[in-house]
């Protein structure tokens, strides 16, 4: 029985994965430098240009990013996609008042769903399984994230969310 949702990617030789990663990283860095004021500024500050990224290891030339950066740019100043392309916001509770907001395009939701589908299939799950998702649904990513993944692999999803004790044991 197959244990891969997407064998082409999941069983790709390491060398090819690295090539793919490099290609995606390169595109990402160019895109951020060109279109994101936040990243453009950050890269200038650290005197690094997209052309400096010539191997995967060159990622070390890029500055780190911290949770504080996300909070400082509340709610959506750091987003690359325009608002009309966003299909979802999730929010994680902040320790210092303002929470952290994350936005998703339709393609983000698709990639996220597929990554969970891969994980579930790698554990041997699939159609015929009944999956009870007992993470909080709503702003917390655990509920809807796992829900979409479980639905994608064709399992029967019971979206109990959290908080109903007895109903679960019935």
């Amino acid at each position, binding site marked *: 029985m197959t244990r891969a949702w997407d064998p082409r990617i999941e069983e790709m030789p390491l060398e090819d994965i690295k090539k793919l990663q490099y290609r995606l990283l390169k595109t990402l860095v160019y895109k951020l430098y060109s279109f994101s004021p936040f990243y453009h500024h950050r890269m200038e500050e650290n005197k690094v240009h997209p052309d400096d990224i010539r191997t995967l290891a060159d990622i070390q030339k890029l500055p780190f990013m911290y949770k504080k950066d996300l909070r400082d740019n509340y709610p959506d100043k750091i987003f690359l996609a325009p608002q*009309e392309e966003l299909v*979802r916001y999730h*929010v994680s509770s902040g320790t210092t008042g303002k929470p952290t907001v994350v936005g998703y395009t339709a393609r983000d939701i698709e990639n996220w769903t597929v990554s969970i589908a891969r994980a579930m299939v790698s554990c041997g799950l699939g159609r015929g399984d009944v999956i009870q998702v007992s993470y909080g649904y709503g702003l917390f990513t655990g509920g809807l994230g796992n829900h979409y993944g479980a639905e994608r692999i064709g399992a029967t999803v019971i979206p109990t969310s959290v908080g109903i004790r007895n109903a679960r044991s019935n």
Partner: protein
Amino acid sequence: MFWDEKYETLPKRDLERLQLKRLKKTLVHVQNVEFYRQKFGEAGIGPGDIKTLDDIRKLPFTRKQDLRNGYPFGFFAVPIDRVIRIHTTSGTTGKPTVVGYTKKDIRTWANLISRNMTMVGLSDRDIFQNMVNYGMFTGGLGFHYGAELVGMTVVPSATGNTRRQVEMIQDFGVTVIHCTPSYALHLAEVAEEMGAHLDSLKTGLFGAEPWSESMRRELESRLGLTAYDSYGLSELFGPGVAFECGERDGLHIWHDCYLVEVVDPATGEVLGEGERGELVVTPLAKEAMPLVRYRTGDITMLKGDSCPCGRGQKIARIMGRSDDMLVIRGINVFPSQIEHVLLDIPEVGSQFMVYVDRVNHLDEMTIDVEINRDYFSGELQDLARIQKKVVKELRDALELRTTVNLVEPGSLPRFEGKAKRIVDRRAGAL
């Protein structure tokens, strides 16, 4: 604006032809369910005996109690591996009603919600805050999938933390909210307390409990939005069954997916346009859990006039229930559920009274129950323990916070015949 103009505006003759085709298919499909094989057998009727839409009157009704008796999967017409979702609604005696969905059901349901949202002028430019329970309650995921299909930005805020809800509306520039009308009023109050202006809001979608025209005016003036009534029930997918259009004079029910009758709740006799009775629905596009002549328990009437928007026949806004079901903060509660919980607690008697009030625009349920002398030591702390236990057991069973008063044995009214244990004091509150 239309989401699916062809099906939303089908001319009467084409619609009836489609309905009959889908009805026949449904009646064959329900033969996969033991309950229907038996019922049809008893009535001496087969799917082939239905030649016109009116022939549906020959078929037996399906009641909520039938669904409960089928717990958990007795009404599924497809193998469980084709069911990709299960929702439940609270039942009267502990066991909930289970509803199942195939992949196609989930798609059909999302499309109906998309029709409703498009009908009231919403589009992919809108930012939608979904302030209802996610999880087992169909209102959360139902609207979520519909809004996502339209291409809106969805803020899945769920319920609770109202100050945070207000902040998100402001910070994200939310244009549309969905919640119960009573929660919307609470939101307005909190926003006013905070001195927050919700200028970005333009549309409110309100459902899961009946609400009045004066409530509509109140919500519209305090939240600065246009309010629309939404109707649905989990047995018919969930929300999205019927919805108001811009005319806001009755709700368009989607006749290509739901065959509608209004019957006398006592006799089951089919009523005509303008006659008030119980809504009975035969879903025409449900795969996992098809139903025949489902008694919704909701009181409404078919409206006679055609609508300028071009869509089909409307039903009136829901006027009440034909049974004793209560809707508390959007959650269905049957008095028998409360009885069931209390009977399992030896420290209290079986007599009880339920009071429902609206406090700060939110439903509050208070339950008076008699203490059982055999279990009561006379200590005050004992009383507190028992009270806490009853509150906890009720919360686990109903998913609702209640206030419990323990009273002297023999102090509650006894009833001869039909007990009147429910005092709903919300009427007239708004």
